[in-house]
Every structure is written in C-alpha cells, then in structure tokens.
C-alpha cells in the first residue's frame, strides 16, 4: 500500500537535514581545519601543545559528542513528529 507524505513529514526531513549539516560542519572543523592549522595551534599550550592534543584527544571527544547529540536529537524528533517506532518491537 502506498503512503502519503504530509507537510509534517517534509518538516521532519528538513530538520533532519539541518542538524546533519550543522554537525557535519563541526566535524569538518574538528578534523580538517584543526589539521590544517596544527602547526599554528601547537604554539598554544592547553594540556600539552594544542595542535597535537586535538589530534590525539580533543577532536575524538568532539566526534563522540557529535554522535551522542545526533542520536538524542533525532530520537526526540521522531517522537515529536510521530514517526517513532513502537516500543520493543
């Protein structure tokens, strides 16, 4: 059986795309911008030279946070827009 997408569904998808884009930009900065300016960042010292610290730990923590936030945000969005799955299926 076919299904009809309502305006609400489109809004849900737009919101999904928006959060995906935002988190992807954070990912990009944490990876490529930080990597590109690693030598410059090393001039600053926070728990060791910052450029090195970011590559070894800082960016990794950001990655974990990105995924944690995405899972939480989307699981709430599912509820809000009524596209969540039944419990314990």
């Amino acid at each position: 059986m076919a299904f009809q997408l309502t305006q609400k569904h489109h809004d849900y998808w737009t919101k999904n795309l928006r959060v995906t884009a935002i988190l992807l930009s954070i990912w990009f900065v944490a990876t490529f911008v930080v990597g590109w300016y690693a030598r410059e960042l090393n001039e600053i010292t926070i728990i060791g030279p910052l450029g090195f610290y970011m590559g070894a730990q800082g960016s990794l923590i950001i990655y974990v946070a990105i995924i944690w936030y995405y899972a939480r945000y989307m699981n709430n969005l599912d509820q809000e827009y009524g596209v969540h799955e039944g419990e314990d299926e």
Partner: protein
Amino acid sequence: MAGQVSQKQFFQNLKKYYTFYTGGFIAFVILVGILEQMGVPNKMLGYMFLFATILLYAGIGFMAKTADVSEYYVAGRRVPALFNGMATGADWMSAASFIGMAGTLYLSGYDGLAFVMGWTGGYCLVALFLAPYLRKFGQFTIPDFLGARFGGNIPRSIGVFAAVLCSFTYVIAQIYGVGIITSRFTGLEFGIGVFVGLAGILVCSFLGGMKAVTWTQVAQYIILIVAYMIPVVWLSVKHTGNPIPQISAYVSALPKVTELEKQFNDKTTPKGAAEESVRAIFRERAAAADAKLKGLEAGGASFLAEEKKKLEDKVAELKATSADAKKTDVAEKAVKEFPADAAAAKAKWAADKSGNTAKAAPVAAHAEPFAAKDEAARNIKKKNFLALILCLMVGTAALPHILMRYYTTPSVKEARQSVFWSLFFIFLLYFTAPALAILVKFEIYNNLVGSSFAQLPAWVSNWQAVDKTLLFLQDVNMDGIVQRAEIAIGGDIVVLATPEIAGLPYVITGLVAAGGLAAALSTADGLLLTIAHALSHDVYYKMIDPNAPTTRRLVVSKVLLLIVALIAAYVTSLKPGNILFLVGAAFSLAAAAFFPSLVLGIFWRRANKLGAILGMTSGLGVTMYYMYMTYPFFGVNAPLWWDIAPISSGIFGIPVGILGVIIGSLISPAPSKEVQELVDHVRYPNLEGDISTVGT
C-alpha cells in the same frame, strides 16, 4: 538466548552474563598469575592464554548455533545498542589498531595521528549518513541495498565485487596478525600459527553466523580493552604517579620528552655531543656507500671486481698477520655477502646510503606536525596527512563489515544509539594509544638512553633475542653507553613490551597477547562473514536460485565461509606486501566504491541505476588504477599526482565516484515510483501504511 523473552529482559540477561563472564576472565588471569609465581614456564602460560581464549570463543560460538536465516545473517535483529557497540568495537579494532597503532605513533609522532583521527571521525559519517537508514531498510547485506535501491543485478554485482575485494584485502592483514601473535607467544611456526588462528576464527562463525560472531565479539572486546588498559595505567602510575595515562602523558611526560629531544639535537650538551659522535659515524657510512655508488656508475663491472678484490686482500692480510680471529671472521663475512652483480650492488649500496642517512638525522620532535626541511616539504606532508584522514574516514563509512552491524539492532532508534556506543568503545582504546606512545618514548629517552651496554634492562635483552627487527641496540661509537641514535626500533614493540617496561609479571604479557589475538580474530570473523554473505546471499540466493530453501541457503553460506577462509589463510601464508598498506588499500577501495552510491541513494531521490553503475565503476577504477601505477609492489612506479601517496588513492576515487553517480543519473530517466517510495521508506523510522523491506 530464548526467542520469547522481551527485549528488556533480554538486555538484563545479557548484562548479567557478561558481568559474570568478565569476572570469570579476571579470575582466570589471576589463576595464571599464581601459576607463574609457582614457577610454571612462560611458554606454558602463553599456550594457556591462547587455548583458553580460543576455547572460550568456541564455547560461545557453539551455544549460539542457529538454523534460522535471520539469526544467521543479522543475529535475529535484537542486539541491544550497548552490546552492538561493543561488538562493533571488536569488529573494528584489528591487530593493526591493537598492536600497531601505538607503535606508529611512537615512530611518526604527530603525523601518525591521521590513523587515530581517521578511524574515529569516520563514525560521524556512519551516524549521520548511513546507520539509521540502513537499519530501516533492514535486509541482510550492503549489496542488498544497492540491488533494491538501484534495481537489477548489475549494481548488486558491482557491490558484491567491491565488498569481496576490500574485505579480502583487509582479512589478509588480520590473519597475518593472528599468525604473528601465535608464533611469537607460543613459538609455533608462522604458517602453523595462521592455521591455528583460522580454526579460532571458524569455530566462532561456522555454526551460528552473525549471531555467534556478535556474542563472541562482545566477549573479545572485553578481553582486548582490559588487556590494553592494565599495562598503560600501570606504566603511567610508575612514571608519573598519576593513574590516568590520558592526562599524565601530556602533562608530565610530553614536556620532558620534548626537553630531551632538544638536548639530543644540541651538540653543546653532553647528551647531544654523544649523539653527534654516533651520527658522525652514520654520516661516514652513508658517504662511503655514496662513493661506492658513484664508483659503480663510472666503473661498472670492473669497479665491482676491484672492490671485491680489496676485501679479499684484507682477509688475506688479516690471516697473514694472524690478528684476532674475530676481525678475520668479519672480513670473510663481508666477502661472502658481497653483491654478485652490478644491479644487486646498486640496490644494496643505495639501501645502505638511505638507511645510514636516516640514522644520522636529528631526532624528530614528537609533537611537531609535518616536520620537514622546508615549507614545500611540509606542505606535501600536510596534504598527505589530510588526504589520508579523509580516505580513512570515508572508508570507515563504507566498509561493509561495519555497516552490516547496524542491521542487527532492534530499531532505528537503537541503531543511532549504537553508533554512539561503537565510537565510545573504540575511543577508549584510540585515545589511550597516543598516551602510551609518549609514555614509552619517555621511558626510552630518559632511562634507556644513557644506560650502560653492560647492564641493559631485562626487557631489552629479551626482545632483542626474540626478533631483531623489533628492537636492536648496537654500540656504534664504542663508548659503552646507549645513545638514542644507536637504538633501532620496530613499532610493534611499544605495545608488546609495555608490561615488561612497566615491571609487570609475564602473565600480563600473556594477557596483551590474548588481547591482540582477540582484536585480530574478531575483525577477521566479521570480514569473512561479509564475504561469505555477499557470495551466498547476493550471488547464490538473489541471483542464481531465488527459490532455494532455507536449509540449502545456510549450507551454501557455510561451505563458502570455509572455502574463503582457506583461501585467505593460504594467501596469507605467502606473506604478501606490507600490512599497513593492505589496510589502507581496503579503506580507499571501499570509500570510492560504496560511499557515493550509498549516501546519494539515500539523500538524493534522483539517483538511479545508471548513476550507481557509473559511480561505482569509475570510483573503484580510478582508485585501483592509481594504486597500480604508484605502489612500488606492482613495479610501475609512475609519477604521483599532486604528491599524494598511493595509500590515499581514494582521494581521487571518491570525487570521481560522486561525479559518476550524478552524471549517470542525470543522463538517464528518473527512478520509478516504487524506488522513490523506497527512499521515503528509509528516511522515516515509521510511516502510516509503510512498505516493508525487511529481509527474510
């Protein structure tokens, strides 16, 4: 694992089982520790760890045996997010991560962090672009998705080819790791070690497929993380008094390492002067090799004969004067090893020259990114660093054995949470590895350098005896004291020797070996299963005999698993290529082949069959072409494009693949209404009147 209990109850039971299991494993380690104190020899302890853990995995594999298709292919789709995270962690972290990573970081400092960042950041792409959508799609393999989304057997077949290609390349690196670990810790021969390891892999997956592999991977994760953490924490306490290595390494050890590096490079300090005397000798040796190369170029065969004559005269002279016998032996050996022809001589002397030049170079600063002689060289390093990160990340989000794991969760919601747990469990090891590298470097720079050759620490002599490529010290300037430039080190030693450096008993070394074995076995399991599934499900069931009964599908899958495993073990026993390159190649291939089609298939409604075919073949084609042309193993050695190393060849394949999908889709008609409905179907976790794509 009964079929009727609720998901909540199931989760509680799992927690109970694995807590009990972890306690049992720790008790086992303590027991072995007591046996060691009672005087049981180390080799016996090594065997105990090897066989006890393989037996354990076999037990789990046997308990999880199944004849149900959904359980065999996707563990019945009821693996809770937390446990799927652990299983993915073990599936993901290979021998290269467990044993090689800290060593790579030790040797290449900042530049090695490309692996740390690449292999974690890729999970952001998995979470944002793939995992939830693939879970909603909910079939068995990655080619399944390509087949359903793009229609027809061609996209599916290309998917099967790419899945087998990258998984096979990767699995060889894993079985190689298994062979090395078993041979090093039990004294078995490499070839036998490979087949013992293979038995370990097969007992996990043969009877229970994905279900058995999932539950053994959880068990393997627990062993590998315990094995990795104990020695590092101990080392951190010993050196800095701080039990958190991830802090102490940066706060206490790194500044001291940097200070020592400066001293080593400064000729006016006593340490720097001693280093300089060693470097001068290496420079002389490099210059001598260079002179010989030039002589060979000018004189050809006659120069070669002259050089040999000189060595022979020296032997004759030494014999005549009957100086000490040792010197005569050395001279005779030089004659015996003298290259037979001009080509061999050129290769040998060129290697001498570059090897000695490298040894004569100053110490590279550990924390300095892209260290090089000038701006241009630094930029090349930076470019390659970023390109490698991109390939590893996109490859992470494209390797079928990882993506497959997200088919096994009960819901889209849990698939999203499961990516978080996956990265969290991977992160625990990956943010420890750079700290370990620094702590070991501190130990070597601070304690080993400056000690006397007459009284080397026990771990140094032990590992030197095991394998000279791992650790080799030679008193080059004959002052009886160890200088930094006199230590030749192989990366793997960093993890392998940490327990002994930290002064822990041998039982912990055995534990580390068991951890390395768990890492290699779990990854190999996931990969072999991916290959067998692609061949049995996608080729046999979907393309050859769609009416095959369940029992026959499972028999075919198991037979293929066995055949693939044997071929992989055979290829491994031939010892092909360099492990790190094999791993890198697998990532580049997967990235270029799968990522564009999978992601555009979900996010771009207009993507169609021709686009997928064009995208996958062109992406894969460009990547393979560049690898073939530039990787020395293939012997072509064409010039590099924009100085990008062959390991990152995906950097060309990925954009070409994306362009291929776009162009191919736009020059052919939009996909049918059914396909567009499929796209909507995967985008929303739940829809009224939704279609169903769940595989049976």
